[in-house]
């Protein structure tokens, strides 16, 4: 049964697909969502895990854009998340509209480094960001595998288009304590 698995709010909406004749948007805007009643906590604020859910759906829209869909996965390869670094900036409430951006920072033979931002509706109010490292995996062998040339080509075209964007200050930044943690008193 699949009725109570983790499902994104816009899984049915028509995804965008890669087109060599269309310029790559910088950043990509592939996914929007509305904060669902079951996404909020006792405060009616969006629960922490739902940010991961929304960023996951944004990544999924990106996968479809570059050609990683059910058919690609059924053939034995996929992109797995290796690391996610979330920054929470502002709260979102039930019914809020969320718009997501995504940019490709870098990629190599097997890995992709991406950055998501989540904004409130069409405003420039940043709610959260997520930096992610993904690895291309041979799902049957259970190990990382080189990407096919067409996929690597799409990623390179996207990386080039996104290279013009300013690099966000949180990229690659370790979690840190901005001043020494003293003891009380």
């Amino acid at each position: 049964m699949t009725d109570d698995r983790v499902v994104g709010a816009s899984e049915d909406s028509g995804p965008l697909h890669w087109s060599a004749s269309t310029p790559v948007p910088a950043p990509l805007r592939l996914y929007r969502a509305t904060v669902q009643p079951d996404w909020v906590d006792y405060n009616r604020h969006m629960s922490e895990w739902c940010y991961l859910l929304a960023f996951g759906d944004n990544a999924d829209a990106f996968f479809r854009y570059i050609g990683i869909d059910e058919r690609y996965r059924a053939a034995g390869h996929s992109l797995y998340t290796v690391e996610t670094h979330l920054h929470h900036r502002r709260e979102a409430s039930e019914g809020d509209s969320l718009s997501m951006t995504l940019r490709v920072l870098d990629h190599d033979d097997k890995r992709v480094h991406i950055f998501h931002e989540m904004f409130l509706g069409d405003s420039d109010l940043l709610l959260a960001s997520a930096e992610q490292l993904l690895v291309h995996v041979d799902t049957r062998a259970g190990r990382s595998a080189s990407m096919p040339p067409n996929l690597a080509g799409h990623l390179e075209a996207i990386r080039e288009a996104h290279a013009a964007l300013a690099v966000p200050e949180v990229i690659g930044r370790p979690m840190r304590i901005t001043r020494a943690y003293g003891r009380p008193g």
Partner: protein
Amino acid sequence: MGERPVAFSTYRTMVRKEWLDYNGHMHDASYGVALSEANEELFATLGLSADYRASTGASFYTVECHIRYLAECSLGQRLSATTIMVAADAKRVRLYTELLHEDGRPAATGDSLYLHVDTTLGTTTAMPSDRQVRVQGMLSAHAGLQRPAHLGLGVGAARPGSTDT
């Protein structure tokens, strides 16, 4: 007393059906759920959980969370967690959590920074002094625990060149 320091490790769970994605593997977000449930148990032992929230209107908000996904999890597998309090002051707590398979293999690690917030004012605020004492007690108790080498490194920094798992 010469007691050996031990990490906080009460959390036990089993991979639930609603945690799975379309591949039958645990969804990225579900690792976050398990890590935060484990940390919630730690906050509860310090008297900083739901009752505290209800009586004071203050709560811990996550400002940053860095998850490393290390192993797949599937339906029914048993997981446990160990948490080290890495740093804390009057308003902040930083926790490092390992989510573990039954055989001890780590499934994920989480490095989380929490801010103590007055939810009615929407501003950070210091914990009451009795809670600060409890927090500092745990921080001292955990001071002798070994910190993993990757703690506090940025995304990608801990795995140069190799992503084979």
